[in-house]
């Protein structure tokens, strides 16, 4: 009989979302590194250059989606790794709440920063 080699809950959606965000992040993370290290160079970074990119709705929305998916994928990965190491009960609930709060704070701060560059939503 097949044994389960995963700590994801049977029938849960977190496993699927971890894979879906992974497929998206593989492309966008590679693009992010390529654009910001090979097309633009580290010693040339200025607020104006970041602003010029963020003022384009396509780039702005891609970066917001990048922030949200990367946060979910990273935090969900941490949570799953901890569950995998035996986290359970009240501690599991507490860790889930703390990671959830950290995710919300990170996304809010990232969106505020993106809005500061773009001067508002670039519609």
């Amino acid at each position, binding site marked *: *009989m*097949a*044994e*389960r*080699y995963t*700590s994801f809950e*049977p029938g849960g959606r977190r496993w699927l979302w971890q*894979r879906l965000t*992974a*497929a998206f*992040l*593989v492309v966008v*993370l*590679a693009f992010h*590194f390529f654009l910001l*290290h*090979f097309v633009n*160079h*580290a*010693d*040339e*970074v*200025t*607020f*104006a250059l*970041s*602003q010029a990119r963020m003022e384009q709705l396509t780039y702005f929305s891609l970066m917001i989606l990048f*922030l949200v998916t*990367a*946060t979910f994928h*990273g*935090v969900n*990965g*941490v949570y799953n*790794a901890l569950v995998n*190491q035996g986290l359970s009960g009240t501690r599991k609930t507490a860790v889930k709440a703390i990671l959830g709060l*950290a995710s919300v704070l*990170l996304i809010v*701060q*990232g969106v*505020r*920063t993106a809005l*500061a*560059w773009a001067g508002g939503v670039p519609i």
Partner: protein
Amino acid sequence: MSQSYNRGLIEDFSRWREFSAGMWAWIFHKFTGWVLVGYLFTHIAVLSTALSGATAYTNTIQALESLLVVRILEVGLLAVAVFHILNGLRLLFVDLGVGLEAQDKSFYASLILTGVIVVASVPTFLSGVSL
């Protein structure tokens, strides 16, 4: 009935000499994942200087990027990200039922390709740094 498999013995890291390719891939993927999520929070914190104005942001980034140690850490970040991407692709394919029989070879390929990409990127990552 399905049941959780007790991986206690496999995950006893003191037995690292006995680990197979798949176990190393699992460890490297966890390690690079922890580094990347840690960096994500740091990255947003540094970029948040944009909230203090254009000058504060430009000065902060340019001061950091002028340091050799920051550029070396960025090369390390690239290595971590490239391996996580390549091994992640390997995992996605295995999840889809492709390449399970060659999962050890695809792990070695991920390592080699990571090394090649990182070494080839070093000149670009160190360009313009003050020594």
